């Protein structure tokens, strides 16, 4: 199994569009692949590939504290035990003499439960999201949906990866492409762990360069090679030149430069509405074709 993850550090550089288009081009050539959308906070690959969900599994969350206002004496021992600032006197404390919980701050550690002498606090389990299995034109896909505000996005990414492995194995598919989340934190680490190649999708902006280098540092920790795609390459000549020099200096491979092309920019919308009848011809699409070919080659090169 070969696993390629499209990542970027910075959001909005074109990860999802590139994943969707290159996967479609491969499928057009008769090769199917398994897909994972590991941006479980805002999954867009299912939209771009018009995924049809075939099944879903609940993803169990942690629990959150609940205070029984009847039993609470307002002593505040819970607030002293809580390190997340989730507990405090209620708005009408002088009348009600109770404490209350801010569920957005609670991390479910239960330190308050042991601290409460009146047994007024219990932990209640929550459902943190879902893992979906779906069908798309290029092949089976798994993606996640995290309940808003949950703190388990990395764990859900790992579940999406597991589900994708399962879907690939069931069909004997040997190639998996992963649409990664932005950032370099817990969900990004879960998305790149155990992959063979990180495709760093960047743009010639200061932010794009800065965030790409953070991603490269992370990938090196995991000893995963990074290949770079420079998207919107003609947006800034000086920015592109600086990035090319940086990529060369870091010993990274630049596998394609996609010029800004309005015909490509509208493709996510066309794909999402099922209105893409033919690929546009032009410099943008040519660059994407050559990136798809490079990625297709890569597996055969590794045997």
């Amino acid at each position, binding site marked *: 199994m070969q696993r390629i993850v499209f990542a970027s550090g910075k*959001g909005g550089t074109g990860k999802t569009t590139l994943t969707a288009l290159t996967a479609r081009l491969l499928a057009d050539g008769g090769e199917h692949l398994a897909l994972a959308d590991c941006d479980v906070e805002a999954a867009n690959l299912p939209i771009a590939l018009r995924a049809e969900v075939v099944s879903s599994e609940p993803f169990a969350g942690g629990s959150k504290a609940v205070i029984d206002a009847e039993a609470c004496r307002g002593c505040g021992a819970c607030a002293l035990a809580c390190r997340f600032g989730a507990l405090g006197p209620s708005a009408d404390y002088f009348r009600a003499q109770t404490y209350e919980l801010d569920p957005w701050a609670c*991390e479910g550690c239960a330190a308050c439960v042991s601290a409460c002498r009146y047994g007024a606090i219990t932990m209640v389990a929550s459902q943190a999201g879902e893992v979906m299995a779906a069908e798309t034109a290029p092949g089976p896909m798994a993606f996640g949906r995290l309940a808003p*505000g949950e703190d388990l*996005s990395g764990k859900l990414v790992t579940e999406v990866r597991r589900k994708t492995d399962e879907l690939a194995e069931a069909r004997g598919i040997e190639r998996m492409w992963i649409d990664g989340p932005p950032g370099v934190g817990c*969900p990004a680490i879960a998305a790149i762990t155990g992959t063979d190649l990180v495709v760093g999708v960047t743009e010639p*902006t*200061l932010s794009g360069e800065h965030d790409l280098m*953070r991603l490269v540092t992370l990938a090196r*920790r995991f000893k995963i090679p990074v290949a770079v795609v420079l998207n919107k390459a003609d947006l*800034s000549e000086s920015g592109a030149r600086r990035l090319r020099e940086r990529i060369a200096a870091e010993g990274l491979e630049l596998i394609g430069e996609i010029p800004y092309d309005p015909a490509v920019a509208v493709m996510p919308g066309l794909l999402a509405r099922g209105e893409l009848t033919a690929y546009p011809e032009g410099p943008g699409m040519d660059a994407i074709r050559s990136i798809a070919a490079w990625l297709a080659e890569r597996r055969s090169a590794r045997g």
Partner: protein
Amino acid sequence: MPGSTPHIGRLTVAVASGKGGTGKTLVATNLAVAAARAGSPAALVDCDADAPNDALFLAPEAPQVSAVDVPLPVVDESACTLCGACRTQCAYGAIRILGGRVIVFPEMCHNCGACVKVCRPGALREQPRRVGEVEWGRVSGEITGPAGVDVITGRLDIGEVKTPTVIRAARKRAEILGRTLTVLDSPPGVACAAVAAMRGADVLVLVTEPTPFGLHDLELAAGLGREMGIPLGIVINRDTGGSSDVDEFAVREGIPLLARIPFDRRVAEVYAGGGLVIDEHPEGGRWFEALWDAVRALAEGEA
């Protein structure tokens, strides 16, 4: 928030989006400068600790840096009786007993301290572990005018996962500075990191683009903002003119449209080079002065 008192005359504005790369940093940096020039001393907090970029546009002079540490439990094996109370207490599965030893997994630990409290032999104590840093300083008054902008950057160490902890530390620094206006440049997504950035804000500015991905992720972010009870408004970036699905969504949901920034190559070029659109684009001043007025109106209307 329980236990907090509103600061009279102070305003906290979170700039968020769901989808990455929609223009949060563009809006947050230029908004902070527009507000300062209109006389409000501002603190701009870069809460995108995975990929912080605000300081590329507004570099503080002589910045100060402090480390962000978390308390990590360590085991004194000579005192440990292997009773397993810490493992039972840990809500995160971060403590295991393997080969006759208590093992703590730092990346799973939430640093809640509950294990230390239940350890009867006193074999657990906490040691600081660095997970990131906060950098802060004042931007030159030549750029911002006499009211001034302080830029505070939360930066996660590469390979670490405690993004929300770093965000909270950066916000704490802003609180200490105590400026009239705090602008929180939030990370993409709708999970714990976004919540850590948005929690307690008076107003939520959601930056989106008129694409299917932008709309989908805007719906998620608006849902989160509403659940958190924060008054919200929308900025449409890369607006191509005419009424989009985003406009329809705003009307249907009764969410005010605060500003439109047109799809304009010059905006992208200024951003690419790390410039401020408010100064380097002929329309920039007008856009962000109007946005600052709209944000204040939203805050006052809901107060």
